[in-house]
């Protein structure tokens, strides 16, 4: 039962362009969404989060958009840089970290390649 889906296993983007990574979820109880980046042989690194009361959160080159009615979120990276090449995981939780419902469910990941 895939509660968090990332339908594109991979994505290639030219350096300087926008990278858009998409994520869909099925559990309407999810209240908090996160994006993690992962390099080989390392643990996931937290990138950006958004709670369900917002539809957009921006942090530098990274912006996350949430469309709750469509159960869809996306991560935009502008401009994309070669160092952004990694696997990006969308994740969701029924509560923010530290609450009773902070079990985070990860999507399968999208491998982003930024071509110089």
């Amino acid at each position, binding site marked *: 039962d895939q509660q968090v889906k990332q339908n594109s296993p991979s994505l290639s983007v030219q350096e300087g362009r926008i990278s858009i990574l998409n994520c869909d979820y099925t559990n309407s109880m999810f209240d908090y969404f996160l994006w993690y980046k992962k390099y080989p042989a390392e643990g996931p690194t937290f990138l950006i989060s958004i709670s369900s009361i917002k539809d957009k959160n921006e942090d530098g080159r990274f912006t996350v958009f949430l469309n709750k009615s469509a159960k869809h979120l996306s991560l935009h990276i502008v401009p994309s840089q070669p160092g952004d090449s990694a696997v990006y995981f969308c994740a969701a939780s029924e509560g923010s970290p*530290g609450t009773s419902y902070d*079990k985070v469910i990860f999507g399968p990941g999208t491998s982003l390649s930024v071509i110089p």
Partner: protein
Amino acid sequence: EPEVTQTPSHQVTQMGQEVILRCVPISNHLYFYWYRQILGQKVEFLVSFYNNEISEKSEIFDDQFSVERPDGSNFTLKIRSTKLEDSAMYFCASSGGTDYGYTFGSGTRLTVV
């Protein structure tokens, strides 16, 4: 920058043996987690731990698994009798209970032969 430390980085064990994976979370964090990633698959939640007890666990976390925070700094995952399908990358994570997500360790690669 504070980090979560996991040891060992790679553990090979025989099927049926007990293994203990160790983690040192960030010192002022209060919430601790174990996740695992089987090769080629997604990162899966195992267990969360707060105030010296398990707060949530997944169906993967059966009676063969246990967690402990024995001394206020280490956070361990024990697998009592390992199976071949336990081979995976195990990630420890900790959180201060803020909106900044978890901090993950670099993982322990467990290989059961």
